[in-house]
């Protein structure tokens, strides 16, 4: 695939450690591993506080991706698998986490994680992942009340966005900003299917449309697509977005505008985290939820 050619769909992998915590003093060290179809996240929590995380691309097999993300997350911390008291696996490959003690659905984990990241006021979570899109209604504890999901079609998913990044030769993390750089909003790309949208976009480019305009038309189509899912669940405040597409302002701004409802700012509900400037990565919500479930289960096991 690569033959020296730049791969524009490749989003940057990342990791982070909370240097204020000494994990050796922790009573409960838990791991949440979210093996998605496109990306994999690992979060380590020490007594329910965010200690470190890693975010990588999912490889060709889930067990390897789970181990790789654990290594990425714990890089330089000295933590090993043996130090973890409880691991919860979630996501598409959740049953294939070799060191997992329990598998919990990504719906439950995203709900729990969004509640913890954005705060208990959140009632609707939109998780826009690599290969599916879910609208989840939750209560103040982060428990799932109802959900709807599109996992059958790439339109409105991160995978679709990757296809476009490659087609237009624009790094995927720049797409959102670029798409907002248009004087006038073009009509959305008319095709639902990513494959058809791709040929439509190619035609527009050949007709002389600048990349920004084509991206605007696609981000707008994507927002429409997700909107039709949201319309079925009766969105309630607060409304939070998780997953990789939450980072794409081109989609988020168009979506919230049409919805007539602002989305929560991507900011920690936990004031101390916000003040210290801990990174707020919308992709780790599922893994955070899993690590939190891990803590509850570890406590239960010890009692």
């Amino acid at each position: 695939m690569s033959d020296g050619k730049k791969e524009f769909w490749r989003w940057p992998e990342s990791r982070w450690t909370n240097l204020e915590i000494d994990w050796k003093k922790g009573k409960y060290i838990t791991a949440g591993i979210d093996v998605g179809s496109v990306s994999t996240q690992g979060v380590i929590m020490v007594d329910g506080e965010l200690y470190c995380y890693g975010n990588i691309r999912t490889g060709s097999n889930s067990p390897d991706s789970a181990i790789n993300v654990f290594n990425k997350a714990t890089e330089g911390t000295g933590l090993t698998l043996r130090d973890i008291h409880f691991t919860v696996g979630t996501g598409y490959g959740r049953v294939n986490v070799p060191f997992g003690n329990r598998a919990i659905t990504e719906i439950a984990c995203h709900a729990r994680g969004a509640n913890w990241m954005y705060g208990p006021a959140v009632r609707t979570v939109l998780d826009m992942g690599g290969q599916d899109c879910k609208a989840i209604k939750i209560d103040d504890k982060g428990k799932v009340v109802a959900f709807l999901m599109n996992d059958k079609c790439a339109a409105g998913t991160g995978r679709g966005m990757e296809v476009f990044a490659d087609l237009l030769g624009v790094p995927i993390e720049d797409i959102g900003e670029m798409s907002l750089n248009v004087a006038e909003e073009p009509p959305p790309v008319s095709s639902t299917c990513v494959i058809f949208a791709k040929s439509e976009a190619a035609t527009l480019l050949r007709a002389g449309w600048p990349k920004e305009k084509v991206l605007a038309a696609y981000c707008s189509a994507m927002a429409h697509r997700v909107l039709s899912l949201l319309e079925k669940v009766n969105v309630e405040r607060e409304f939070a977005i998780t997953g990789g597409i939450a980072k794409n302002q081109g989609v988020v701004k168009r979506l919230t505008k049409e919805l007539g409802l602002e989305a929560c700012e991507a900011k920690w509900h936990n004031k101390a985290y916000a003040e210290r400037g801990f990174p707020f990565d919308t992709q780790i919500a599922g893994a955070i939820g899993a690590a939190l479930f891990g803590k509850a289960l570890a406590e239960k096991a010890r009692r």
Partner: protein
Amino acid sequence: MITAGIDSGAKNVKAVIMKDGRVVGKAMAPAGLDTKAAAENVYNEALSAARIAKKDVRKVFITGAGRKGCDFAQGEVSEVSAAAKGIRFIMPNVRTVIDIGAEEGKAVRLSQDGDVVDYAINEKCAAGAGTFVEAVARALETDVDKMGDLYDRSTKEIDMNAQCAVFAESELVSLIHSQTAKADIARAVLNAIGDRVVSMMRRVGVEKDVAATGGMALNRGFIRAVEKELNITISVPADPQYVGAIGAAVAAAE
């Protein structure tokens, strides 16, 4: 009387020349960027194949997704109506026709007299159309034409989530890596497309005789998949890609 029919499809443009109820010339070319120019080119090609001068053609009718913006045709016909007229011209007993092109698939049910009773169209999703097979053939490093043979050689039914062409492409990569036989992958994909088409057919109701047209009709594996699912026999005319253009030429003659 001499008439012409042009079918401006998503991928290919087809033209036929008809003289006194017989097809006397035909031509096909990729639609490319300028669909109008492509339509004119295939029309001229079909004329020279038929050895007929343009001035002798009474009427030209056009159909297909790209039919707008073509100014030399005197009339246009919907794709559903062109598929119906075309297939009844070739096979007068057909009551249900499935027409599966590169980007669009449809199922049309006809009355005994050949009038359209009901139809369903999929134009929103590549997983039910020819483009999907092309993508899969590319991934399997084989030709579209060989997909049917591969289907026949398959010995195992494999589990594949082929509901979306984009997802299927990534799933294919893992299947190929895990040494899954190409034949089994081909069958899984053709079955998936077949399922989509079958659900359209069930929506409009299936009445015998059943025929298939469009480029996908050339794919034996696909036809077999639909036949098996519905327990019916499907007839495929010679040159099934030209049926829409024939329908347009028939409409021009009416």
